């Protein structure tokens, strides 16, 4: 624990959540809101920002109080902290936009059970310094928001022929209604995972080939 706390803040802390350890595409966390509210970019953005707020604030408080919270009551304390920020975000969204609040439905309150937030509090914020925890949570939250927008963009485009409410295709385009329904969430998530894993695999194969060529070694044959 001590070793973790002494580690300096690096760019890696921030970027890990964006891509390499993306909570949706790599860690597959918090998939319930990912599938449920990504039928439009606006909903995805609203949910992403709400989750980012709760993640950053709760991780900051958990990290700041980590020396005072006994191990035996840590999970209970984390849940109280997370539930507090979810309640705050619930009021704040109602104050900013009732329309958005109505569109996101019960999924705002359900942020409290998003395992991404409790997972980061337990695995990272409770073992690291304040700054590092906030930077990491920001990266994770932005990675989560990015994933939601990637799903929401495709689903809104194909399911309604729009992007952020603006029509993209001509009137002749027949929307794929399934895309804005729950099965569309599974289909688009599957397609993104397929594409991302294909790109990752191709990159690593390419890197291996280049390394082998650079060191004048032959690539070992697989049998």
């Amino acid at each position, binding site marked *: 624990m001590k070793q973790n706390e002494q580690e300096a803040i690096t760019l890696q802390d921030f970027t890990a959540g964006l891509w390499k350890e993306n909570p949706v595409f790599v860690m597959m966390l918090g998939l319930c809101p990912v599938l449920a509210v990504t039928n439009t970019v606006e909903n995805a953005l609203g949910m992403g920002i709400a989750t980012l707020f709760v993640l950053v604030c709760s991780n900051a408080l958990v990290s700041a109080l980590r020396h005072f919270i006994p191990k035996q009551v840590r999970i209970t*304390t984390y849940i*109280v902290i997370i539930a507090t920020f979810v309640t705050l975000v619930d009021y704040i969204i109602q104050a900013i936009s009732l329309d958005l609040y109505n569109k996101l439905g*019960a999924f705002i309150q359900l942020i409290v059970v998003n395992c991404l937030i409790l997972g980061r509090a337990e695995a990272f914020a409770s073992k690291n310094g304040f700054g590092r925890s906030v930077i990491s949570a920001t990266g994770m939250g932005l990675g989560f928001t990015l994933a939601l927008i990637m799903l929401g963009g495709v689903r809104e485009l194909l399911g309604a022929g729009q992007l952020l409410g603006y029509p993209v295709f001509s009137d002749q385009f027949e929307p794929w209604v399934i895309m804005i329904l729950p099965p569309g969430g599974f289909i688009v998530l599957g397609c993104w995972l397929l594409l991302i894993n294909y790109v990752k695999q191709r990159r690593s194969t390419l890197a291996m080939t280049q390394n082998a060529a650079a060191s004048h070694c032959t690539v070992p044959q697989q049998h």
Partner: protein
Amino acid sequence: MAQQPEVPELPSSTRLIATLSVVAMLSGLLVVLVYEYTKPIISENQRLATERAIFKILPNAVKYLTFKVDNGQLITADNKSSGELIYAGYDANNTLVGVALPAQAQGYQDIVKILYAYNPYTGCITGFDVLKSTETPGFGTQISTNKEFLANFNCLSAKVDPTSGALWHDIKTVRHGSKTQPFEIDAIAGSTITSNAVGRMLNQSAHRFHPVIAKNLSLLENAARNKEVSHETK
């Protein structure tokens, strides 16, 4: 000889209770602060949403008056009044064009609240706007987007029998594609629970308010001429 495993010392119960109490108090303080700060903003948003909904469902109205339903009577009120409020819409000549009425029922996830337009002259419900809904996106939310479902409200019959002072018929939701009567609502396939909730809430609200409106129609008709109206369209 095997060495005894070292047992970590447990903190005292007092410390555990104190930690949880401090965190709970901090949590309560934050929630109360934000609640107090956002309460007036949320109330104003709700008032604006209601006003928007009134002018949306009563497109010919340019102003409206708020009334409170009290013991079968209508009393002039304002938006800050508590109790059951209804809104009468008037055109530029102060002629009554319709009444906006609240309705609510349990949906799939939570209570769905709507405001619907009622024409007391034709006895038709002519449209509605969702004020609060936490229904499943893509399913329950279709009640305000599905064209076939919205066609039910071109003229959903909710007439009052002048002799008995009650509704001629109950409003009910029927299975998709089986509507035969003007007082029936054709449900959305795949969103039956929310469709049924709309039927239930309209039936309940119509039984509650329509007879009162029929009884106090002349009051509603003359109210805008007798006093300055509370709100106007921009």
